[in-house]
């Protein structure tokens, strides 16, 4: 921990990224207290406020700092509310997919043989199904909801982690330090956690940080298809996928602000991820 702080202080980029991410997370959690109106409360929204440009432009109104969307929701407040959902889905799904995937991948790679075949063929099966089809089916079965959405996305993404973890595990499972650990009598679980995991973490962190953005967009696509968040409570991704249709017509604020917000989130997460990866690797110090 002391080490972390030491390296943290040395890297300005990380400090900035962390501050940005913290501000974003906090402001989305406490959005209720920050923004004047709740865009998810239908009674407070009016079509009469539709498509107002940002405040500094002609026709801009005071009420909407960054303009409003088609239904008359303020862009800024919707972003803050929407970020909450997007981050929740993004992080949870990546963590869920990551945990399932890395665990199965390491187990497959480490034990090999039948276990490997079974897990990896399961992965093959999983890979063959379009996320959309899974989503529609799950929805048909279970109905929708954020939790189900996370599960669907987690299920759809575990394979990437699994295959990566397996590949890296395969190449180090015969190394001498793993043999040494076996000789000491460390059980397999601990070998996996202490010796294999830290040494395959590099690609996993890369994939996980890159995937967060993907997952947020996947959530948008699924929400758009009707599984996941309701249209009346747009997430960041949904705002973007709604807004892009109006890109041609010059209503740029519908997509530029939520898009910019997403870029900022993704950038900070990746900068922090890169840094974390470096710090976790003793050789790079």
């Amino acid at each position, binding site marked *: 921990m002391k080490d972390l702080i030491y390296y943290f202080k040395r890297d300005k980029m990380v400090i900035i990224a962390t501050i940005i991410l913290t501000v974003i997370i906090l402001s989305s959690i406490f959005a209720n207290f920050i923004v004047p109106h709740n865009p998810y409360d*239908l009674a407070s*929204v009016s079509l009469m406020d539709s498509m107002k440009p940002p405040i500094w432009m002609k026709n801009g109104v005071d009420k909407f700092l960054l303009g409003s969307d088609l239904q008359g929701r303020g862009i800024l407040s919707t972003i803050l509310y929407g970020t909450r959902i997007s981050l929740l889905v993004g992080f949870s799904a990546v963590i869920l997919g990551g945990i399932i995937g890395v665990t199965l991948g390491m187990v497959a790679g480490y034990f090999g043989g039948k276990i490997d075949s079974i897990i990896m063929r399961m992965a093959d099966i999983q890979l063959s199904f379009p996320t959309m089809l899974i989503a529609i089916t799950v929805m048909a079965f279970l109905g929708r909801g954020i939790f189900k959405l996370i599960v669907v996305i987690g299920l759809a993404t575990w394979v990437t982690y699994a295959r990566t973890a397996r590949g890296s595990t395969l190449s180090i499972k015969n190394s001498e330090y793993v043999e040494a650990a076996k000789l000491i009598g460390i059980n397999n679980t601990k070998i996996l956690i202490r010796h294999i995991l830290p040494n395959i973490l590099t690609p996993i962190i890369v994939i996980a940080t890159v995937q967060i953005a993907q997952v947020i967009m996947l959530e948008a696509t699924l929400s758009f298809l009707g599984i996941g968040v309701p*249209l009346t409570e747009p997430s960041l991704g949904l705002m973007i996928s709604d807004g892009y249709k109006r890109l041609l017509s010059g209503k740029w604020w519908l997509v530029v602000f939520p898009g910019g917000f997403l870029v900022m989130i993704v950038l900070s997460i990746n900068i922090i991820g890169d840094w974390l990866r470096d710090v976790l690797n003793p050789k790079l110090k």
Partner: protein
Amino acid sequence: AETMTIATPSDALTLDPIMLSETPTISVQMNIFEGLVHLDENMDIQPGLASSWEVEDDTTWVFHLQKGVKFHNGDDFDAEDVKFSIERAKNHPKSQFKSPVGQVESIEIIDDYTIAIKTNFPYPILPRKIGRILICSKDYVEANSDQHLQNNAVGTGPYQVSSWEKDEEMVLTAYEDYWGEKPEVDKAILKPISNPATRVSSFLSGEVDILMDLPVQDVERVEEAKGVKVVTRPGLRLIFLGVNTQEGPFSKLKVRQAVYHAINEDAIVEHVMNGHAYKAGQFYPDTIFGYNPDVKRVPYDPEKAKQLLAEAGYPDGFTIQFDSSNDRYMNDGQIAQAVAIQLARVGINVELNVQTKSAHFDKVLSRNTDFYLLGWTNSLGDGIQFLDGLLHTPEDSYGRFNLGNYSNQEVDKLIEEAAMTLDEEKRSKIMQEAVRIGIEEVAYLPLHYQQQLYGMKENIKWTPRPDKYVKISTMGFDN
């Protein structure tokens, strides 16, 4: 040689005219094949392969066929082909055109160029229905497998398919020996581009000459562009709300009226549809047979709505689930949201359940809904379709899309009467009456008719049709 490149929202799926009753597919087939009659830009009946027809008795129709017509493969067109095509539509196991010819009892060849069609009972819309059956060459169809026919069309129409890469482009070239007027456009390239933004872009970049289904939000952008114009036409599709008239809050007329009053359709048209829709006051627009000019839309009046709700026993409103698709109609998801927001203002708490179209249809068609959004297109140009399917009490083949189980004996009777009345004027009156009652009782809540929007290069002369079929032969150029 004039070439026209057209960006369409989707490709035809088959070239066999009985296999699929779907607008984009028929739209393409309409250029290659012809029916006995066809509808013009105003949805009025015009002669096609039949030069004239008459009603012999209540149930017998005689059609006189064009002479000297040749199929693209050189076969001559005659009564055999007509009989064969109609019977194929009626009997082929996979035919999707069984309904249009469902009332056809028998077809009799009087001579090479005259046939008589007998119906089960007096059937006023037979010509409109029979017009939907496109005529194929008997010899050609019999000589080829079904599979072959999917991709290889031989018709009598003004155009022939000269190449077809599915979902990529179809090239149609004018048929040299076409019996009718020679079209101005020699060659048409149909490019299916399903993504609206891309379609608009390909138009803006000059890659295509005609843009179909211009999204309402992009109208201004296209209008600003140089050398192109936006052409609008009233569409046939009605977007409406359906409610369960038998159970729940909507079983009370006052609640239905309240909801209708609570919806500010002007705002929806202006903001959601960007001004490109027509406020609807009844079930079909004035181009359709059976329109009632006296029925007016109720005004937007939230106060009245609240009052009606209170009178109905819901002073504090109620909660209801609202089903809608979001990828079927123009801006359907946004319309549903706007409705939800407006109802929220009068105290009705709407839980919006927006789904992809297959899921949505699955849900509402199984009548598992109390409140839903749907669209309806009158492709025949005759309102009886709506009345049969949506206003009549569900029984037998009636009311199959009457998903809210609206039921009124009087209306039922009127509809049944209209179906059998051959006299146009009388029939029109009966249908107008049914519409009046349906609107008065708020059987459905019509929102708006969609507008059809096209982008065209400035030098193009073309009046699109309300049914969205792209007839290339009607296109031309200003010089």
